[in-house]
């Protein structure tokens, strides 16, 4: 029964997208709204059905094959969807949060000119994201992977009349291309190692292997896959595009650049978890990259003035935590953070969008203030989200982040220390944001006077997401709290699929250690959060004072360590120089000159020359024939 309806899960949003693209402008906003919401909600409903069907299926797994896609030599790629604990949960997140954000977008984008265009892209994104999540083979996953990159590009550059938005879209696209190259090479290496690109077959074959301690083919493949993941999930060194991606509409930032697309890198690694387990080198690289990104991005977020930029750096930082978890072989913990982060970060972005909407596109934190009374729903939901992200005990972020930090400590205390510093920064800048936006006095009275709470289409998703953000943690209540860490149990069939040696790694660490680490990180987060709130709730004066006292540090942090400028000076400028040289040397001289114009000139000159013999006079032609006859006679008679 699932076989007949499951393919509709990704296809419905595609049909919706086609509708908006082809007929959207004529059909009107009401029809676009109904179709956009309807298709995504239907996808969500079908995903729920598939979720329960997969749960009931043997091995918690449904493999649906719809026919052959490619069969070239040894390579056979089927058109198939797979529902296992991992992909069915992810599909629920994509379609569920996607549906909420579609609803929110109706309110946020109602006034916009390109309403149908926006929903065309957004539905297309849902289609590609679901393809990525549900695809049973790496090539199909890659189709989704590229497709979400395309939609991300289109949606970042949605405000085409501005200068910066298309440029930001291009930047995202280019950074993603670098990652995609790694992804492609990783796929080739995996094909070389296993002779197949179907995920279940790869995992089944990998299950018989022993960990690779030297640098071999598998390590190369997984490292390349990780490079692809850094591109999509904005990790060092390919994180630069994500802050710029905030040029897109805010719901897009929430859906694509916080909740779903940017987590596809983590999803990819979870998907191939049994292979990654075999390569400890890669896992170490993943862990350190994640930890470094988590701290680095968090410090950059400390002094941003744009509310969305703060959240963007926060996203980069949180993605770093997820990779840290994966690197510590805590796939369940990493994925739990994906899950919880999807809820509270989408909520934060939508809350920020609500603030921006209420203040008529004011994004500067220094011009907000005192909105607590004006926008109560937004305020309270934002408070919940902030508590989640800082890891307030009992909230979803607390469980996931703490599990990651605990596993990081087991791998290496240094990783834990870096992660803890990042967590402190996170709590600080989040409460700085809250303090600047909602407490204190209004610093821009004009905007403040016109501020208003958003319509119900925007506040309803906020409320639902807030409930989700609080409840999501229930999946991950650790054993020491009397829970079962349900997510690990649930994901077990997916991350250990086909594993012969599954369950051999023993739990180490004690309850006392777990309690101790939890206590330390919670205390640190609460203290720095309180610090941020108490400083900034009074206004911006203290930050200005700090900038005067430490001009160098402040400038470096506010300007994001000048990485963009460094890329410009050391990578882009030489590239442009070389490209210019190559253009002048190869294109202008070699190809245009020697290759194209020279033969042209020779032909033209020769033509001009021979054209002189074409007099148009019969006699001249006849004379030519006579000479030809003479020549023939001479040849025959000589």
């Amino acid at each position, binding site marked *: 029964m699932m076989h007949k309806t499951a393919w509709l899960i990704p296809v419905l949003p595609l049909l919706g997208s086609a509708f908006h693209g082809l007929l959207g402008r004529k059909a009107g906003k009401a029809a676009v709204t109904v179709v956009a919401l309807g298709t995504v909600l239907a996808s969500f409903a079908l995903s729920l059905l598939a979720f329960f069907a997969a749960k009931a299926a043997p091995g918690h797994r449904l493999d649906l094959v719809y026919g052959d896609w490619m069969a070239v030599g040894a390579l056979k790629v089927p058109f198939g969807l797979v529902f296992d604990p991992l992909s069915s949960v992810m599909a629920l997140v994509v379609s569920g949060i996607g549906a909420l954000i579609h609803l929110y977008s109706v309110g946020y984008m109602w006034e916009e000119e390109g309403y149908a265009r926006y929903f065309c892209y957004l539905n297309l994104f849902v289609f590609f994201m679901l393809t990525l999540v549900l695809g049973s083979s790496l090539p199909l996953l890659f189709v989704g992977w590229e497709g979400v990159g395309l939609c991300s590009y289109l949606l970042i550059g949605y405000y085409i009349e501005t200068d910066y938005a298309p440029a930001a879209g291009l930047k995202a696209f280019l950074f993603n291309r670098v990652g995609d190259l790694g992804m492609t090479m990783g796929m080739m290496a995996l094909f070389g190692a296993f002779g197949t690109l179907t995920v279940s077959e790869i995992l089944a074959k990998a299950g018989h292997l022993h960990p690779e301690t030297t640098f071999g083919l598998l390590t190369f493949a997984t490292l390349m896959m990780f490079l692809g993941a850094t591109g999509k999930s904005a990790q060092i060194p390919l994180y630069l595009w994500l802050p710029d991606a905030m040029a897109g509409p805010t719901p897009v930032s929430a859906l694509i650049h916080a909740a779903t697309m940017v987590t596809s890198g983590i999803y990819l690694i979870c998907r191939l978890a049994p292979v990654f387990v075999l390569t400890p080198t890669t896992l170490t690289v993943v862990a350190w990259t994640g930890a470094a990104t988590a701290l680095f991005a968090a410090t950059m977020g400390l002094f941003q003035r744009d509310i969305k930029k703060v959240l963007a750096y926060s996203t980069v930082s949180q993605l770093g935590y997820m990779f840290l978890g994966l690197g510590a072989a805590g796939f369940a913990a990493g994925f739990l953070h994906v899950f919880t982060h999807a809820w509270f970060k989408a909520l934060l972005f939508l809350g920020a969008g609500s603030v921006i909407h209420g203040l008529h596109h004011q994004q500067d934190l220094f011009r907000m203030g005192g909105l607590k009374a004006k926008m109560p729903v937004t305020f309270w939901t934002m408070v919940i989200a902030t508590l989640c992200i800082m890891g307030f005990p009992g909230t979803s972020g607390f469980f996931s982040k703490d599990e990651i930090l605990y596993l990081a400590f087991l791998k290496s205390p240094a990783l834990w220390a870096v992660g803890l510093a990042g967590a402190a920064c996170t709590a600080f800048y989040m409460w700085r944001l809250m303090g600047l936006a909602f407490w204190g006095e209004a610093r821009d009275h004009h905007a403040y006077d016109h501020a208003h709470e958003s319509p119900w289409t925007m506040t309803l998703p906020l409320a639902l997401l807030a409930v989700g953000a609080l409840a999501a943690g229930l999946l991950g209540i650790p054993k020491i709290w009397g829970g079962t860490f349900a997510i690990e149990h649930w994901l077990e069939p997916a991350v250990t699929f086909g594993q012969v040696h599954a369950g051999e790694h023993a739990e180490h660490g004690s309850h006392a250690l777990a309690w101790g680490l939890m206590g330390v990180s919670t205390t640190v987060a609460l203290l720095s959060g309180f610090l941020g709130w108490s400083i900034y709730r009074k206004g911006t004066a203290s930050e200005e004072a700090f900038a005067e006292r430490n001009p160098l540090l402040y400038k470096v942090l506010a300007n994001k360590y000048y990485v963009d400028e460094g890329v410009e000076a050391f990578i882009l400028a030489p590239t442009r120089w070389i490209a210019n040289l190559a253009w002048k040397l190869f294109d202008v001289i070699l190809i245009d000159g020697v290759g194209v114009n020279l033969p042209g000139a020779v032909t033209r000159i020769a033509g001009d020359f021979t054209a002189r013999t074409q007099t148009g006079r019969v*006699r*001249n032609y006849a*004379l030519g024939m*006579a*000479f030809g*006859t*003479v020549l023939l*006679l*001479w040849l025959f*008679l000589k």
Partner: protein
Amino acid sequence: MFAIFALITLLGALSVAFQKNLVIAGLCMVVTFFGVAGLYLMLSNPVAAALQIIVYSGAIVVLVLFVIMLLNAHEEEAAARTHPVQRWGSAAAALVLAAGAVKVVLSSGFASAMRPMDIKGPMDLNRLGIELFRGHLVAFEVVGLLLLAAMIGAVALVKKDL
């Protein structure tokens, strides 16, 4: 006798080549055709000689002269510009070809061995008629069609509006 007729033929042809006046050139053509007819007589082929005089001297040259008169083009028009290259080139080509032809003919043992004079008797119309209508009837009819087509074609070319 052969040498006389040959001389008449060639001299007539040469005077056509160098005659400026078109009417006189046309008359020189008649002389040449008469010389050719004489050559046919020397080949003891009176039928061909008669045809030559009737068709060429009679019909074709008259047609050419008629066109000359019609177009009122007695003299060659002044050249737009002189073409010494063309003139000397054609002279050279003609001379080389003539020399080559003479050399080939003189060196041919086959041609010198054959003696056209020792033949039973002159060509007669009776034999020709029998051969023509027994052996080549279809070809004869086709030639009739060809002449018709040529006539229609000529009329179509010249007539202003049909």
